[in-house]
């Protein structure tokens, strides 16, 4: 995706999306190394997997904030968007800590799972609000619309996955397959958006919306 962004001169306008993709590449290499050294069932791998996933989610959160900034750029509301994002992130972390505070055994791992589920859900709600803003402000940039929609699909799949895992812990082994599969969708959709859709392409968002 980064190569596509470089070729299409989309590094600077979408810097946080590219940072996220670079980070996910490094995290994948790190995971592979730890898997090789300690094995799939080791504590080291489990800890590294969940903590790196949380960090990636927070980075994706900033990528989403940067999309907000682009949509609201004409209204000069970037400062408020950034402040709101930091407050929400802090609030989500505090809320997740509060929820698991009573179960003090395995507090740290439980906290990470709870935080992930809540972060994905907050990310999903924020993406939905961004999509509503795109419709309301009649944002027509096709590339931006596709980036927002693909992010929405990604967040909703992962939020549903973690919610199912919380509801049915017995299905955890089965549901663990989903995040890597979903993880392939986002880079593929972003590559498509950068490679196939020119920056000048325009689309009436109301034509693709389900609810207007």
């Amino acid at each position, binding site marked *: 995706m980064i190569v596509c962004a470089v070729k299409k001169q989309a590094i600077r306008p979408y810097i946080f999306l590219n940072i996220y993709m670079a980070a996910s590449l490094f995290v994948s290499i790190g995971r592979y190394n730890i898997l090789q050294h300690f094995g799939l069932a080791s504590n080291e791998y489990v800890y590294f997997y969940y903590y790196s996933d949380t960090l990636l989610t927070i980075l994706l959160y900033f990528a989403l904030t940067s999309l907000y900034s682009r949509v609201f750029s004409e209204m000069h509301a970037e400062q408020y968007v950034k402040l709101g994002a930091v407050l929400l992130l802090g609030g989500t972390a505090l809320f997740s800590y509060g929820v698991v505070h009573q179960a003090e055994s395995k507090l740290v791992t439980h906290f990470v799972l709870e935080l992930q*589920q809540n972060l994905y859900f907050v990310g*999903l709600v924020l993406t939905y609000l961004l*999509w509503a803003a795109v419709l309301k402000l009649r944002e027509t940039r096709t590339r931006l619309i596709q980036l927002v*929609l693909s992010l929405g699909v990604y967040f909703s799949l992962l939020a549903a996955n*973690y919610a199912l895992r919380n509801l049915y812990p017995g299905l955890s082994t089965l549901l663990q397959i989903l995040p890597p599969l979903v993880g392939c969708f986002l880079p593929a959709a972003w590559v498509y958006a950068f490679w196939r859709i020119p920056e000048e392409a325009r*689309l009436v968002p109301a034509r693709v*919306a389900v609810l207007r």
Partner: protein
Amino acid sequence: MMAVFILTCSIIFLLQFFISYCRSLIASSVREPISQEVQEVTGMSRPAAEEEFARVVQLLQLCPERPEERGEISLIRAYFRMLGVFRSTVARVVPSVERWTSSERGQCTHFVAVVLGRRIAFSRNLFAQQMSN
């Protein structure tokens, strides 16, 4: 309780985002007319009807694949199937959904027909290049 709420919202949002994403892919082809060649090969009517989808996809698989189109075709096929499930379930309760799914599936057919046209042109170019070499 919280997990149930998150799961319900996620599924509702997922449907909306997925449908909108597929429609944004299809939107690029809506203005593009189906080429004369494709109409002749498939005997397609205008506007494209949903019943022709399977046949156009079969023809699509006979043409040399362009790597950049692989993902979008799979996604549109998944969308087409999902609309079929909608029609056989939700449309029985809400009749207006029936008309909507038919129109959407027709647009999916139009999309694959446009892609087929591109593939035929691509194959022709490839063949012409080989002949000139």
